[in-house]
């Protein structure tokens, strides 16, 4: 299997929203996993709606988890959090490629996403050094202050 084939499989996975693919042949094994949000159902499809809007619990106040991803960051993993309120975009324009993907290496100065607030497109910098391990927000979804956007494994 060469790189061309692997790229073809990845494209097929994206097109068909397949998150995991595993192939084992006699002397060869390959496992491909897409880790972006939308693929791991828990982050988007939970009953309280988008992460930033906590469900109102009937029957009295209780501590509500606000804007937290269901799994905590593991040690050695950093989070890039939103510094503002607005709409999250992964690419500078609808036709352009995303600023980062899983596996992209970032330096503090790299732009990782756009947050649009009051008609202004704000470029958000990584401010950390490492490799993107998770994209926590779907494209064009609203984000609030402090909401985790990406997980980064520091190197």
């Amino acid at each position: 299997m060469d790189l061309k084939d692997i790229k073809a499989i990845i494209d097929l996975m994206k097109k068909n929203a397949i998150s995991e693919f595993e192939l084992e042949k006699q002397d060869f094994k390959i496992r491909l996993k897409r880790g972006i949000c939308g693929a791991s159902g828990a982050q988007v499809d939970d009953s309280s709606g988008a992460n930033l809007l906590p469900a109102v619990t009937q029957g009295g106040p209780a501590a509500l988890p606000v804007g937290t991803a269901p799994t905590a960051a593991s040690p050695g993993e950093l989070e890039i959090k939103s510094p503002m309120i607005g709409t999250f975009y992964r690419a500078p324009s609808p036709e352009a490629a995303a600023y980062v993907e899983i596996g992209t290496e970032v330096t503090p100065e790299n732009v990782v996403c756009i947050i649009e607030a009051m008609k202004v497109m704000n470029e958000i910098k990584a401010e950390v050094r490492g490799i993107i391990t998770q994209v926590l927000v779907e494209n064009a979804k609203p984000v609030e202050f402090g909401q985790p956007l990406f997980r980064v494994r520091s190197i």
Partner: protein
Amino acid sequence: MLKVAVGDFTMFEKILIANRGEIAVRIIRACKELNVRTVAVYSEPDSNSMHVQMADEAICIGRAPSSESYLRIDRIVSAAEITDVDAIHPGYGFLAENSHFADVCENCNIRFIGPNSRAMNALENKAVSRALAKKVGVPTPPGSDGLTENEQDALATAKQIGYPVMIKAVAGGGGRGMRAAHNDISLIKGYHTARTEAEKAFGDSGVYIEKYIENSHHIEFQILGDSRGKIIHLGERDCSIQRRNQKLVEETPSPLIEGKFRDLRKKMGKAAIRIAEAAQYTNSGTVEFIVDDQGNYFFLEVNKRIQVEHPITEEVTGVDLVKLQIMIAMGEPLKLSDSDVNIKGHAIECRINAEDPFDDFRPSPGRIEMYYPPGGPGVRIDSHAYAGYTIPPYYDSLIGKLITYGKDRREAMDKMNRALSEFMITGIKTTIPFEQAILQDPNFRRGFYSTSFIDNLLGGARRELIEDKV
């Protein structure tokens, strides 16, 4: 989203509350009764706050300091945009009287629930408002015309009106930015200090000078104006019980007016409306006056917002002021006229602050262990507190308001005494024991008090306060 709009009336589907604490809870309650969905905004330490839990949606807008959260116009408007609200209610304090914020909202097609920019500008600071009142023939305390630009000005004004005088910051509010001077020396010193403080606290070093009326009575009138120019008043509130210019106990009707100067209500009510009309005021506001012991009244300023003590007016008139604010903002014309407003019975409010009255009212933030509020007929609590709630140290100390209503002043006082003694809050210190002492003071019970009441209570003969029962 289907929006209903008929003429200049637009039904709101969703409102964002740009505030926190008890007033945010109050606004959410009015919205629920009007079937309007709510969006709360909150700072990080407020994530477990009552208003966040009651609202339909909630957006975190920043870290603890107000300057990074509740005062951030950009973040609040962004939150309003991503939740697609029709209007913003600013509550009181924070951005409630910020005309720039009102402008930004309008530019973003979001209705600001409060007076329009024109009215805000006509009353933009205390000096401008004083000039407007003079123009329409409403008496103001003797004092400077416009700002006091330098020492010579200050001395000349003081000579003209006579000591004692009050140096006031034009951009001050909520009882802050005022200092008294009793002679030339303290005037010069106070003038310079006041300007520096004003610059730091309000971003505007402008000050003016007014006669300091001793043993005064702070009496304010609630007004409402709709978008068609109709303005009414809903009676007065007596807020003379103040500690360091912060109101603590308020009541309506005013015992001074009821007891000694009955004709003042009509006179002052008319004056309040004259000022509001001159400013083309819309939505809810309060016209503040000072009354001396001879029944002479003087205009102080207009508070261009819903006020903390609005519940006592609601209790004696049966009018829901916050609901009316929302409906006026929707474009609904005021159906009430002055003659429809019926003031019945008597209401008293005690502000419950997280402060230790036995330790110079030091703020007492922290976790509320037990919280049992009073109840029964004629008792109302407007509060965001609950057992297990941690009061953050970053904001004001008001944790709730206790309001009682009775068919007359005696009954309202009896209920307040009962309610204060039932109110159990542990884990933090509160002003409840101090308010018990106020309610049982013979002068208060007779309705004989002025703005020097608390000073006298704290420094005078009656030093012992009711001990904490818990």
